[in-house]
């Protein structure tokens, strides 16, 4: 009969209209500025730089200004200048640091390729999205002071990923320390052996095995 399709369709709209008052499947909007959306952990927006110590963000940047992200960034929104001097990093090793680290967020497309290519886990994706501004130029060009955020912040926005990164870094640091210790021990043993060698001619006690 002509019109049955229409009537059935009207039934569907009626079901949706009524459902939009009580059924969460059909009422899916939220009152945004008052109610914030719950972001998934993987959500990414512009990058930020990880610092070890929130008290001294510029002194403890993980970034060593290797400029890999600058080269790999598809829209080329990163600008880095290396420092002339070196500073000790978290593990005490002397490293170059970025004297200038700028990200132009008006160009950045949040693709996270910088994060993927960074060998030092120094740059990570942020979850800030309310950055609307009336200034097109300066307010959207983020300097290293604005980009630097502590590791605890990273742990709060990407807990799973951060735990994995921290574990890896701690293992690396431990391995480096053990290597340094082993190297120092070997050096000391070698020095001892060298010192013991002339004395070894006369006494009966053999030198300890290194």
């Amino acid at each position, binding site marked *: 009969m002509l019109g049955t399709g229409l009537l059935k369709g009207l039934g*569907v709209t009626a079901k949706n209209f009524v459902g939009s008052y009580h059924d969460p499947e059909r009422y899916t909007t939220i009152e945004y500025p008052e109610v914030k959306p719950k972001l998934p952990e993987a959500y990414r927006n512009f990058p930020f730089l990880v610092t070890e110590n929130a008290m001294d963000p510029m002194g403890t940047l993980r970034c060593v200004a290797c400029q890999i992200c600058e080269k*790999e960034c*598809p829209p080329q929104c990163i600008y880095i200048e290396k420092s002339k001097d070196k500073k000790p990093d978290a593990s005490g090793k002397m490293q170059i640091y970025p004297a200038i680290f700028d990200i132009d967020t008006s160009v950045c497309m949040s693709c996270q390729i910088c994060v993927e290519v960074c060998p030092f886990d120094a740059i990570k994706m942020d979850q800030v999205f309310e950055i609307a501004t009336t200034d097109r130029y300066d307010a959207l060009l983020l300097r290293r002071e604005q980009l630097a955020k502590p590791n605890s912040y990273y742990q709060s926005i990407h807990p799973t990923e951060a735990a994995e990164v921290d574990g890896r870094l701690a293992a690396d640091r431990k391995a480096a320390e053990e290597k340094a210790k082993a190297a120092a021990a070997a050096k000391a043993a070698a020095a001892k052996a060298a010192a013991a060698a002339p004395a070894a001619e006369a006494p009966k006690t053999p030198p300890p095995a290194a």
Partner: protein
Amino acid sequence: MSANDFSPLAPQAGSHVREVHDPLHGELLEVSMGPHHPSTHGVFRMIVTLDGERVMKLKPVFGYLHRNHEKIAENTTYLGSMPYTDRLDYLCSMTNNWAYAIAVEKLSGQPVPERAEYVRVILAEITRLLNHTCLAGFLMQDCGCSGTPLMYAFREREKILDLFESLSGSRMMCNYQRFGGCRVDPSADWLDGARKLTDNYGRFLDEFETLLTGNEIIMARTQGVGALSPELAINAGVTGPMLRATGVNYDLRKVDAYGVYSRFDFRVPLGAHGDVYDRYMIRVLEMRESIKILQQALATIPAGPIMDPKAKLRGFRPKAGEAYGRIEGPKGEIGFYLVSDGSPNPYRYRVRPPSFVNLTVLEDMCLGQTIADAVIILGSVDIVLGEVDR
């Protein structure tokens, strides 16, 4: 009337409507529809010559969204082009990523682990659901069903985008596939979410079809409008649902059987008339087949690595050579043609965009139809201007 009359570069004195004298048809009216017309799906412009309400001539004008995609890709690394492929067709970023990844994998001989192949199929089929749902909504909007079907479609789209966001970090610009696998391993929770979506989607489609498929107004409005003959479709290189609506059995998932598609049991729906209604129906039927594929893939997804351990992210330099990678995207055959000279950047990078090629038959479908039909014919082609103009 000279050819110059239709040139987009010819001075037209700011007029959107003007009279054209044609010795054969008498006084005709030339209307410039777009580039900011709401029915043109972005910045697309049609210069239509009308005899009363009938379309006598239609010239598509595009390029307003040209972003130099191919040249940019020739000046960045292979990896650097991956996020740009998201922006070709913002509805189907996952399939664009996959097509590009396939092209580069062919070029470099990079193997892909099995789990990644399954994840790719799952994401591609979810993308098909997303694209076809949106298309049906937009098509109905073009027909004049203001709002309701489109909002229902967007409500479902939002659920899919939430899935994409929790996996890749971004709703539309996923940037998820990599050469030799995928970027993130989907968690068990994510796969459960995909299963839930798949199970519920059939119910939504039933409801959507109750609303639209049997609706007498829609049938009267779309049946017999914008018919495309299979011969013309083949000659013009039309692919995807547009081609299958004319009755030609050509689906790259069956023809090429790329990825792991040969392991899944699904059918290729075919149309009979090639009109707007068939194009709408084909998409609904394809979504049903996609649900079938998703159920099989989600039930049999193997464990294992998601990335090939030998895959290189940085300093990627394929040997000199060329490769063409293509997949059946939701809109048709999306392909990437790459020529490598052994450097980190492709020497030549070319996109074969399905909506651009499908658009070439627009005039043939619109001739003799009314101007209101031209709008729904364009809507049924399923174009995204980011891909047409690149």
